[in-house]
Each structure stands twice: as C-alpha cells, then as structure tokens.
C-alpha cells in the first residue's frame, strides 16, 4: 500500500451540481467566523505598526499606555524576544538566504506596517486609544523602495540579506544567442506586474485561550492551514505540539493570504499565555492592506524567437520579484519569480530556453502566496508577446498558438524546464475558444468599430496548472519539502459516515465536495456524510492551498474508505453467504451485485460490525475507522484557456470588459456548479489585478493605498457575464480522475484581459506592459504614441 495509491469506486454523487450543505448557515447569518467568537473574560488586541519603511527604534516608552484603566498588557519587541525569535523562513536549497521576522520588531523595523508594539485591553477601541499613547522614537535608515534600488544595493533593506539578494537561480541555460540573432521574428519586452493584495472580504484574525491549569492551548484562527499552523506554533514558540488545538471557524475567503504563519499569530499566543485569559485579534482592513502578505510584484524581461511560420524557437525569461523585507512562511519569496520560471514555457514546445529568477529584498511588506502565485506574471508577459508575434506574421492569435502547443501525439513531452507533460487538451482549448469567441466575426466587428472611432480588442491566454501540489511537484519547483495530508473515515454504528480532515474551507465548498467523494467511496448518499475539518483534533494535514484540496481529499478519503469497504464486503459476504467480491455498496445498502433485494442497509451492516460479534467472519477486525495519507505519484496537470473582449474609450482611457470566455479541463469535476464558481471568482480577481488593483508605494516605500478608497476591488459592474465550457481529461493519479483548478483563472485570465487592451490599442502604436492598466496609463501611452 502506497500513499499514492488511487482508490477505485463508482461515481455517483461526483459529477453532480449538488447544492452546498453549508449554505443555509451562511445565508441566515448563523455562520461563526473569527470575529464572532466571544469567550468569557476575553480581551482584545491592537497593534502599533511602523510608520517608517526602514528605521531604528531608538526609544519606546509604553508607560502611559499601560497605565490606562482596562489595559492589561503592553508589549514591545523586547518582550516577545524572550520567548521567540519569530518566524524563520526560506527555501531549503542552495544559495537561498533565510530570514527571521521577529514576532514584534525589535530594534529595527523593515517595512511600513511591521508590528512594533501590542496593546491588549478590555475592548479594541480602548486598545487603539492606548496604542496612540505609546511613545516611540525612530531614526530613519536608508530605504530600498523598489527593484532598481535593490539591485543598486546602495541601501540594504534587511541586514540579514546581503546585497538585497534573497535568491538567484538559473533554472535552465541553453545557448539561445545564435537563435535569437538569426530568427525571422523576435518579440521582446519588459513587463511590470503590479503589486496586489488577495484582499479577502474577511481580514485575518485569531483568538487564543491558554488554560494554565492544563497547559492546553485552544487557538482559533481564520486560516487555510490549521494542521501546519499547529506544528509551526510549536516550532516557533517552543511549545509542545500536543498541547495545541487549532480550530478553524468559518473563514471568509483566503486565496492564499491565509495560508501563511503570521507573526501576529505567535504574538497573540504569547499574550494569551501571559494573561491566562483569551485574547482576540481581529485585523482591520488598513492593517490587512499594510501588513498581510502582498503578491504578484514581478518584473519579467521576456523574449521569444520564432521562425517565419510562427514556430517558437527559443525563449528568454528573466523574472525578478520585489520580495519585501522578509521571506513569508512557509512559501518564502520564491513563491513568485522562481515558481514562475518553473513554468516559463507554459503549454508550448520551445526547445531552447534561458530561464532565470531573482528575488530581491525591499523595505516593503512580505510577498506571499495569492491564487496563481508566481505563474500569473510570467503568463501575462508571454501571452502578450505571442500576440505580438502573431501580428507581425499576420497569423491569428489562435493559429500561432495552435502551431506551438504540445499535442496529444507528443505525450509524454518533457519540456525545456524538465517538466514531463503527460496530458492536456491545449489544442482543443484553442479550438473551443476560437469558436466561442466567433473569431472571424470579432475581427470584422473590430474593424467596423475602428471606423467609428471605437477600439475593441481581443486577448487570449492558454495555460496549464500544476495543481494538487504534493511532494513531487514541490521538488520540481526546487522545494525539497514532503507533503503530508490525511483523512480519517469512519462508518458510524448507524451507518452514517464521519470524515475528518485538515482541509479547511474558506469558501470553496469542501463540506459538500468532500462529502460527495466520501459518499461515492462508500456507496452512501451525500446527506449521510459529514466532513469535520474544524479542528486539529482531526486527521493531520498541511491544508487547503495550491489547488489541492479536491485532489488530497479524494486521494486520502479514497484510500481510507478502501480499507473500510474491504471489511464491509468481507462481513456482508459472510452474512449473505457469497464471496466478498460479489458484494457492492450503493444507495446506502450493501447487497449482492445485481441482486439488490439480497442485501442489508448500511446501517444494519454497521450495527452488526460494531455490536454483533456473532455475525463476524473468522479473524475479522471490526475497526470501522481508517486513516490514510495521500501524495500523488506525479504532477496533476489541469489546463484551460481564457479569451476577453474589451472596448477602450481612447479619450478617457476607461476600459469596459464586454465578455470573458473560459475553458477548463480539470478532469472529472466533483461539482460543476462549484467548479464554475471558482472560475468566475478567479476571473473577477484577474480583472481586478489587471485593471484596478495596485498597491502603490511612494519613494520612501510608504504604502499610499491603505484603504478601499484607493485600493480598488472589482465590483459587479466591472465583471461581465462569462461563457464557460468544459473539457475532461480525467487524471489517472487521483480517485475519480479529479484534478484541482482553484487557481486557474488567476494564472491565465489576467493575460487575456491585458492582451485584449493591447490588441485594441496596437493599431495606435500603443503597447501596455505596466500594470495596473489604469485610465491614466492608457492616456499617457496614447499621448506618447502620438508624439
């Protein structure tokens, strides 16, 4: 038995758009999120955060704050340093500079928003009042405000990072110079991907209760990774792991931002232990924009060489990440450029590649994981350049891609970055999108519109996604980290099914989709299954991120259920006097194959297993609970594509997104309704990241966009109706053929939207390579083109 074993069972609930079990709770306001947790004696925390990007703390006096009636604790970095060094992070590979972010900044602050003090008081408002009375003197230090300054290294952002270089990695270095020199077509540019925030509607937060009489810690956190958080709290705080229970309440969105271990979580835990009463920290929105991980901030210098038929000959991609002042945990700064270079050739056959990544330190908030991670920026750059090559060669964007994608007859295809592509419907995706878009009509409409002074554009992006990330895929990206995910499946005495797992949900419907899996694995109906993921008292696992919950859920539930299914067949065969192979589990019954009347209900069988030894065959082990891990044997490859049609008002620079088209091949869909929800939500985020959202820093690395008045999320008027089609390439590596897809839209749709604006304005000599594509940037580009 291997952790990569793929359980086989008939699909029944899987594939159905079953309405979500969790919805009535959420629709009636009865969901309990982290801010809804109220415990007796609970106190409230507020942080003081650094107003400077880089400074020495020369003086800090908390006495006025501590003296206020109702304030129970005021701590600075000196206090937390007694108990923890903080969060240490970095990738375990050569030449990677690890960093340790102190829990509360001690002596030096490295970014605006870094914690410098904490107040715990009877209410949040009182804590904020007291926080204002803390007297802090700073001596400003030279600031590294952007990648250019980081490269110059005149100023050093973090003394722990020499020359501001966290990591430099050449992934592949073929000799491409001659090819570029002699190619019929070369397209190249520098692409500036804007810094954004995952910005879930619910901010971060945690509530910690440390019961000194038992030494047990109950830690509620709005987290995507409860199991891993527990282990790392033990690690960073030197607290025995078994004394910690992490409980995940309802979580209001995560998108990767809540899949980190945050210093605030360490601090609140220490405060709770110090005070022996529960302590609550509910992040406010300004804190979230300032200090919750940022994302996508890359510069990609990309060049593609092609022959006269548009066949790609070579690719150069140098990707640099503006990483902020510390590595985030656990992903490290490599989550952006390094990961991006790992898929720099996408779904195309490009024989010669020079792919290189650089993570540099700046005096800004940490870069971390956000849906699509480092893949988005590179995808956008590459797809825009492919469109340019198409225009130069008078090929349609669909045709040029057709000529270059890996095809079925090529599988398995090992590409230049050493990824073995064993499946994917790239060609079919292109064909589908071309049909959905009605390409010929669009080009005609675009020409007619231009004659009227209206500018329409079409963008296209074809992608694949390495989802369901386990040990194999970690290793591919240079991360020698073994993943561990398990589920426990129990058939209860009354024949219902209880599944426990560490796959916490933050909106993606796991209480329902995992129940669909367990239901099919044991032949019961979905309403007879409950998924318990709220507590680390349950099965251990790393958690929900990297488009993996469906894969790891199916895999681990499948393996565990297999154990139980074998025993159920064994005892049923004995009771029905047939061979176990002739027993099937379906519709809440256990019966002889083909003869439903000869059987028992699951409840009867379960009751017999638990309480009627006389019904058991010889040497029968009645244990009706099994735990199994899962870790896929190879990469899980989903794929798809996006197309977008936009209209640009060239007088105002306002862009209207007319329509978006999406094709997804995520193998067997568990719940098509939920799959489409992931696609639509991701496309909305892609529109935001491309057109509206930008975390702007000034020359002193002060974050200027600190509220929703300046950091603009897409609204219902900014996201159009989206046309969706599905392809199905079941995965042989996962029960049911299921693949992950959660990140797909954020990997690929930004490229389609940005490509569409570029397509609209190409006839005016404009190309846009700096995000966000704001009206102002369009205006400036048009003006420069006219000169």
């Amino acid at each position: 038995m291997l952790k990569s074993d793929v359980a086989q069972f008939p699909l029944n609930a899987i594939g159905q758009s079953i309405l979500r079990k969790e919805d009535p709770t959420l629709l009636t306001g009865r969901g309990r999120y982290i801010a809804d947790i109220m415990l007796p004696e609970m106190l409230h925390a507020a942080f003081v955060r650094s107003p400077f990007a880089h400074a020495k703390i020369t003086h800090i006096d908390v006495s006025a704050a501590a003296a206020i009636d109702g304030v129970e604790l005021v701590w600075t970095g000196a206090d937390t340093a007694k108990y923890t060094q903080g969060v240490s992070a970095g990738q375990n590979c050569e030449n990677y500079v690890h960093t340790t972010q102190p829990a509360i900044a001690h002596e030096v602050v490295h970014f605006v928003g870094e914690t410098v003090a904490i107040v715990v008081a009877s209410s949040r408002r009182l804590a904020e009042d007291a926080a204002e009375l803390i007297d802090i003197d700073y001596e400003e230090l030279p600031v590294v405000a952007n990648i250019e300054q980081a490269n110059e290294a005149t100023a050093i952002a973090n003394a722990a990072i020499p020359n501001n270089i966290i990591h430099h990695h050449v992934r592949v270095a073929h000799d491409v110079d001659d090819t570029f020199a002699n190619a019929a077509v070369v397209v190249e540019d520098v692409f500036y991907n804007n810094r954004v925030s995952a910005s879930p509607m619910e901010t971060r937060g945690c509530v910690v209760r440390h019961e000194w009489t038992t030494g047990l810690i109950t830690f509620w956190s709005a987290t995507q990774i409860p199991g891993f958080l527990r282990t790392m709290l033990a690690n960073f705080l030197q607290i025995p792991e078994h004394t910690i229970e992490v409980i995940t309440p309802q979580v209001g969105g995560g998108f990767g931002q809540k899949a980190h271990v945050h210093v605030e979580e360490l601090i609140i835990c220490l405060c709770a232990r110090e005070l022996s009463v529960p302590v609550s920290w509910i992040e406010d929105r300004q804190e979230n924009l300032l200090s919750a991980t940022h994302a996508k901030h890359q510069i990609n210098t990309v060049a593609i060489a092609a022959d006269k038929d548009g066949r790609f000959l070579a690719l150069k991609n140098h990707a640099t990440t503006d990483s902020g002042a510390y590595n985030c945990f656990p992903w490290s700064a490599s989550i952006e450029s390094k990961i991006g270079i790992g898929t720099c050739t996408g779904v195309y056959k490009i024989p010669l590649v020079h792919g290189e990544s650089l993570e540099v330190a700046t005096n800004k908030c940490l870069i971390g994981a956000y849906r699509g991670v480092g893949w988005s920026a590179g995808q956008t750059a590459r797809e825009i350049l492919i469109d340019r090559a198409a225009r130069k060669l008078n090929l349609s964007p669909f045709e040029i891609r057709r000529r270059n994608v890996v095809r079925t007859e090529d599988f398995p295809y090992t590409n230049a970055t050493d990824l073995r592509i064993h499946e994917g419907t790239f060609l079919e995706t292109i064909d589908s999108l071309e049909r959905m878009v009605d390409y010929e009509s669009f080009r005609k409409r675009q020409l007619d519109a231009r004659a009227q002074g209206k500018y329409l554009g079409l963008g296209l992006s074809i992608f694949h996604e390495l989802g369901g990330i386990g040990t194999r895929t970690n290793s591919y990206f240079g991360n020698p980290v073994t993943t561990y995910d398990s589920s426990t499946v129990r058939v209860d005495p009354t024949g219902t099914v209880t599944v426990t797992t560490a796959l916490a949900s933050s909106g993606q419907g796991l209480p329902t989709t995992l129940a669909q899996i367990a239901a099919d694995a044991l032949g019961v109906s979905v309403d007879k299954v409950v998924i318990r993921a709220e507590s680390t008292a349950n099965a251990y696992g790393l958690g929900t991120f990297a488009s993996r919950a469906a894969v790891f859920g199916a895999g681990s539930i499948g393996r565990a259920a297999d154990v139980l299914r074998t025993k159920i067949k064994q005892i049923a065969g004995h009771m029905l006097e047939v061979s176990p192979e002739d027993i099937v589990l379906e519709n809440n019954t256990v019966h002889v194959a083909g003869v439903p009347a000869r059987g028992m209900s699951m409840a009867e069988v379960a009751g017999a297993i638990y309480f009627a030894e006389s019904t058991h065959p010889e040497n029968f082990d009645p244990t009706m609970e099994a735990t199994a891990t899962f870790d896929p044997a190879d990469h899980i490859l989903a794929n798809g594509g996006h197309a977008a049609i936009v209209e640009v008002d060239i007088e105002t620079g306002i862009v209207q997104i007319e329509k978006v088209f999406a094709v997804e091949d995520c193998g067997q869909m568990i719940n098509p309704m939920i799959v489409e929800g992931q696609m639509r939500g991701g496309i909305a985020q892609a529109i935001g990241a491309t057109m509206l959202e930008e975390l702007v820093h000034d020359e002193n690395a002060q974050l200027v966009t600190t509220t929703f008045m300046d950091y603009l999320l897409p609204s219902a008027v900014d996201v159009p109706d989206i046309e969706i089609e599905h392809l199905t390439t079941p995965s042989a590596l996962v029960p049911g053929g299921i693949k992950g897809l959660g990140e797909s839209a954020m990997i690929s749709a930004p490229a389609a939207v940005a490509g569409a604006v570029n397509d609209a304005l190409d006839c005016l000599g404009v190309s846009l390579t700096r995000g966000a594509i704001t009206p102002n940037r369009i205006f400036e580009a048009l003006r420069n083109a006219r000169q």
Partner: protein
Amino acid sequence: MKRVEENEFIQVRTTVNGRSYTFSTEARVNLADALRYELGLLGTKVGCEHGVCGSCTILVDGKSSRACLMLGVQAEGREINTVEGLANGKELNPLQESFRRHHALQCGFCTAGFLATATELLRENPAPTRAEVRERISGNLCRCTGYETIVDAICDPAVAAFARGEQDA
C-alpha cells in the same frame, strides 16, 4: 438632548427584525458593533469599517445603510432589519433559496450585505434587468463569486414572484 460626555453610556431603544431591544453603549460604538456585540446579532459582518465593502449593509427604516457608518446610538427609535430576520422560522426565504440554488455565495462573508441590498431593490422593482441589478449591487464587494451568480439569483423568476407577493402584501 443634552451633551453626553465621552465614555458615558447612552441607553438606546430600537426594533430589530420586528423585536424590541434595549441596550446601553458609548456614542462611539458603531451600529455594526452594537448589533453584533450588544444584541448578539452576529450575522452583520464588518469588512472594512469605512463604508466601501458593503458587508455590513442592513436596512434602517427600510433603506439600505452601512452599519459601520452609523453610531449604535443612532438606532434609537429606528426599525432595523438584518440578515437574521429574513428566514421564516427554519425556512429560507425565496431570495435566500435562490442564492443557494444559483451558488451566489462561497465564503458567505459578504452575503448578508448583498441580501439587504437585494431586498431593498426588489421592493422597489420586483423584476429588475441584469444591468439594473449589477448597478444596484455595485456597492457590495464580493471576492469569491465574480458576481454573475448573484445576478442570476436576484433575477430568478421565483424571486420576482416573491417580491411581487411582498409588494401586494
């Protein structure tokens, strides 16, 4: 009314979801926090505390309003409706059912705000066009759904029938 000093408590009498409540609070506590922590009505969520995200949207005297941009003491004498008042006992109302049917929620954090906005819209216009709905809900931010299924849910014929029925009632 005479001036009440900082940190003094003010008694407030209000009606929420048809039920009378009395509570005391400082003037500076916003209505969202008052509803949540004084009255235990935790369904109203706080997403930004500056009136932009719309998660805290409730109905005050029938009109949509940001609970984070009102003071708890301003609930005095008002009739407030929050998400807790929508269901009929243990039955979701047709608007809530429609949200479920159309997968118009994922993490659920913004949902109460959307339900308030939709309820107000449907009272004025039981059968809005998709464009009208999009415009009306553009003040409520959702990070999960991409909005299309929310529009589908609000435009569902069962919801229009419900809204017309409410109008006639």
